[in-house]
């Protein structure tokens, strides 16, 4: 780690270490903002501001990735709470009108899997995303979500069970 690489107000974080996890951080921010890219970029930028200003201090109690993900989660909760409720309202209205929900319109090759995940309750969806898509342990994922490891494990198991059932149902209905 070069000395000039270290953040002044966060001596345990280097610019290069942040750069290494940047894509994953952006992906996590993206899912926090209902896949609104501009909002996600702003959220990531805000998290870097917090790190640069030393407001969010990394003390090496977890991995840097877990820490930055938790910063993103907390910022999203506080700053984007109002926006998220508006988005939910818009999604609910779209569903009432018979439209597809916004998140499900994201272009993916296997929409059945994606839709099955998106239909999970928020916490189950979060832990599945963190463990399966962002390569975290259940313990780290629980830390990001601000729940105990035990609670995280319960959400994880339920999510997997629901997902499997939904994917099985999907396969069966395709076979018929």
């Amino acid at each position, binding site marked *: 780690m070069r000395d000039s690489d270290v953040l002044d107000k966060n001596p345990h974080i280097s*610019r290069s270490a*942040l*750069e290494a996890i*940047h*894509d994953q951080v*952006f*992906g996590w921010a*993206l*899912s926090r903002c209902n*896949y609104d*890219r501009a909002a996600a*970029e702003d959220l*990531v*930028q*805000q998290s*870097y*501001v917090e790190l*640069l*200003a030393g407001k969010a201090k990394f003390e090496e109690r977890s991995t840097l990735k877990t820490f930055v993900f938790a910063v993103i989660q907390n910022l999203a909760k506080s700053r984007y709470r109002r926006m998220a409720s508006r988005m939910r309202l818009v999604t609910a209205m779209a569903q009432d009108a018979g439209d597809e929900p916004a998140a499900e319109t*994201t*272009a*993916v*090759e*296997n929409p059945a*899997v*994606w839709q099955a*995940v998106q239909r999970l309750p928020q916490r189950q969806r979060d832990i*599945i*995303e963190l463990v*399966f*898509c*962002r390569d975290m342990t259940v313990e780290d994922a629980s830390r990001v979500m601000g729940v105990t490891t035990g609670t995280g494990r319960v959400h994880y198991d339920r999510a*997997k069970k629901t*997902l*499997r059932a939904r*994917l099985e149902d999907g396969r069966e209905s395709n076979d018929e």
Partner: protein
Amino acid sequence: MSKDDIALHEMLQQAQREADGVAPTFTEVFNAAENRIRGRRRMQFAGLTAAAIGVLAFGLLPTSGDEFIYVDMEELKATTYWTAPSDFLLPDHQIDIYRELPKLFESTEPDGGTLL
């Protein structure tokens, strides 16, 4: 991870990668964050400077009142006039102030033919 978990893992990672798309470059986002910090510091500096200037200006500007000016008594004579005070507080209502008050002067001892 079980065999099922691995299959689910691969499917989800693929779907997530597609949903995430391409992230904006780190340099772009990080530099913007640094600029935001610099901008905030500049704003704080400007605010402090403005406050300091305000305090200095307030301290240095002459304050009104308590100013001494020289007056020419002769000039003032023509512009001043005197009116009798109200007799409201006098012991007797409508007392003849011109007749009663001179008695006070008479009670003092004359000094060289003039009243003190």
